């Protein structure tokens, strides 16, 4: 019944349908990039300097094989964007999953146990909130580069990023879940479970968890957009993904040099892709939040 109400509300909202469609196209293009991209941008053999700085269609000098133009090394922008979106999405999604797992666990525990455990966990969340993701990334990055040998930096960078972004975003999930847990904990069905002697972990996992996940879905969707932006910001600042594994943020940074020398497309198109992706995900998240709300009335 919930699903059909949700579907009904979805069909009634043109914005939801449109943003879902856009998001779906972008996500599919990103996920399937290795198979459907016209060119593999990491394959050096593909590069031909003669193709460098081709403008996008329909400008003069453009080429059908490079619909969005090429960069300074002749790399196809469309493929670069598709692969870049893929990385951005992977980092963003992984970071959100990390934040959700940690946040939900902490929130459940804090809400159900109460007392000192609750106080301690929520103060930990507060402390975490004082460190924005950029700061976290720099911190973690610094630690990791001190520990690892140089040649391994690049391969680990993606995990560093996922960890840094994820760990800066778990407190919101913890707070939301804690609030819902506090409400559910006092309900009679939890008391009925306690009565037959079920352990606390079992009650939290089987009874309370399913009832607090609703807001998590909404928050997760919105956080996905934010996480992608976090990663783009970090990459743009140079502490994110390296040029060997460029995300959209990295692409924007690399193309930034050419913005005012005439080859604007090298930075603008990755930027547009980023905007479209985050916007459509955010709109979807907004709709989801509103659609799930009236049911609570």
């Amino acid at each position, binding site marked *: *019944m919930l699903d059909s109400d949700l579907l009904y509300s979805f069909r009634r909202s043109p914005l939801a349908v449109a943003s879902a469609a856009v998001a779906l196209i972008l996500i599919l293009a990103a996920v399937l990039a290795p198979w459907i991209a016209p060119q593999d941008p990491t394959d050096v053999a593909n590069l031909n300097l003669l193709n460098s700085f081709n403008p996008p269609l329909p400008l003069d000098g453009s080429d059908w094989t490079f619909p969005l133009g090429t960069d300074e090394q002749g790399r196809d922008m469309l493929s670069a964007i598709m692969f870049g979106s893929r990385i951005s999405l992977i980092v963003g999604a992984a970071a959100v999953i990390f934040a959700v797992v940690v946040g939900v666990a902490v929130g459940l525990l804090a809400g159900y146990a109460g007392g000192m455990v609750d106080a301690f966990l929520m103060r930990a969340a507060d402390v975490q909130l004082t460190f924005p993701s950029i700061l976290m990334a720099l911190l973690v990055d610094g630690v990791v580069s001190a520990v690892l040998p140089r040649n391994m930096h690049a391969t680990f960078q993606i995990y560093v990023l996922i960890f840094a972004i994820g760990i800066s975003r778990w407190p919101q999930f913890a707070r939301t879940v804690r609030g819902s847990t506090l409400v559910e904990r006092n*309900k*009679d*069905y939890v*008391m*009925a*479970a*306690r*009565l*037959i*002697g*079920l352990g606390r972990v079992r009650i939290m996992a089987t*009874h309370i968890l*399913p*009832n607090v996940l609703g807001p998590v879905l909404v928050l997760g969707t919105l956080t996905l957009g934010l996480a992608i932006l976090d990663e783009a910001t970090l990459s743009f600042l140079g502490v994110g993904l390296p040029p060997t594994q460029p995300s959209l943020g990295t692409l924007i940074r690399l193309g930034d040099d050419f913005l005012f020398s005439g080859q604007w497309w090298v930075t603008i198109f990755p930027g547009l892709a980023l905007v479209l992706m985050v916007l459509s995900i955010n709109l979807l998240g907004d709709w989801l939040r509103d659609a799930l709300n009236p049911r609570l009335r």
Partner: protein
Amino acid sequence: MPEVPTLEAQGISRLFDVSRPWLQRVLSHEPRLLLRAVDDASFAITRGSTLSLVGESGCGKSTIARMAVGLMPPSDGEIRFEGNPLSTARAQPALRRRMNMIFQDPYASLNPRWRVRDIVAEPIRAFSILSGGQAIAGRVGELLVQVGLAAADGEKYPHEFSGGQRQRVSIARALASEPDFLVCDEPTSALDVSVQAQILNLMRDLQQRLGLTYLFISHNLAVVRHVSDRLGVMYLGRIVEQGPAETIFHTPRHPYTRLLLDAIPDLEMVGRSRTPVGGEVPSPIDPPPGCTFHPRCPLANARCRAEQPAYTEVGEVQVACHAVAEGRETA
């Protein structure tokens, strides 16, 4: 030889610390605030009978319900289940499953995300009464039919049922552990009158068929009259009158019991006017000294204001009232 009562409470009390957080207390020089929700209550329920505890809000009946089933330990006094201390009984699965509870709110007592068949099966699984999907499903079906639903209703979610039907599911779940003793915390207060009649009749049938013992909590005296063998009237944490239900209804002795019986709007009251007693139930945090009922009692004297009354036996009824002890009450 008298049989061991199924549940026996001796002098139980329960205190809640409702003080403000430590820092605020220290800064504003406030003392600790202790709420005495239950004060020295004693009762015994024999097997197969129903004891009802009745009273208005804040009288402590819900707290007693929680203590009787072991969800909360008493601050003082002792509770025994078939002669065993309750805490020991709760620690053993074999005894723990013999007691269960039915709750007031049909909308909060079933997990909205679970199907009914899982809700009812949970005690069966928790106590390993049966194993194997087939056997459990069969038993769940039986239980649902026993409470007046259909076996196929197990597939549904709670929100697909009405309030009365949800209470039936609650009862089915409580019966799943094959209990002997059920605490019923206002099971029909949230239901419409005609649905209430169905549920009360159902509970009566189940008691007769399965030999159940009930501790029935309610604020509705008419319902209580219908279901009880014995009755305890509570006021601000104390049981002020206790005894066979019919005797109390026929000849209420404690002034509060009389007030309650007079106050209830009743179908028979058509055309009659009443003279209600004034005042309201005082806050349990700061109860009046002596007999807590004295501010509202027409028979209060100086002794009532100073000294808490002990129980007086009047036939089979115990009454905590100085006026009764001194023979001052009017007929």
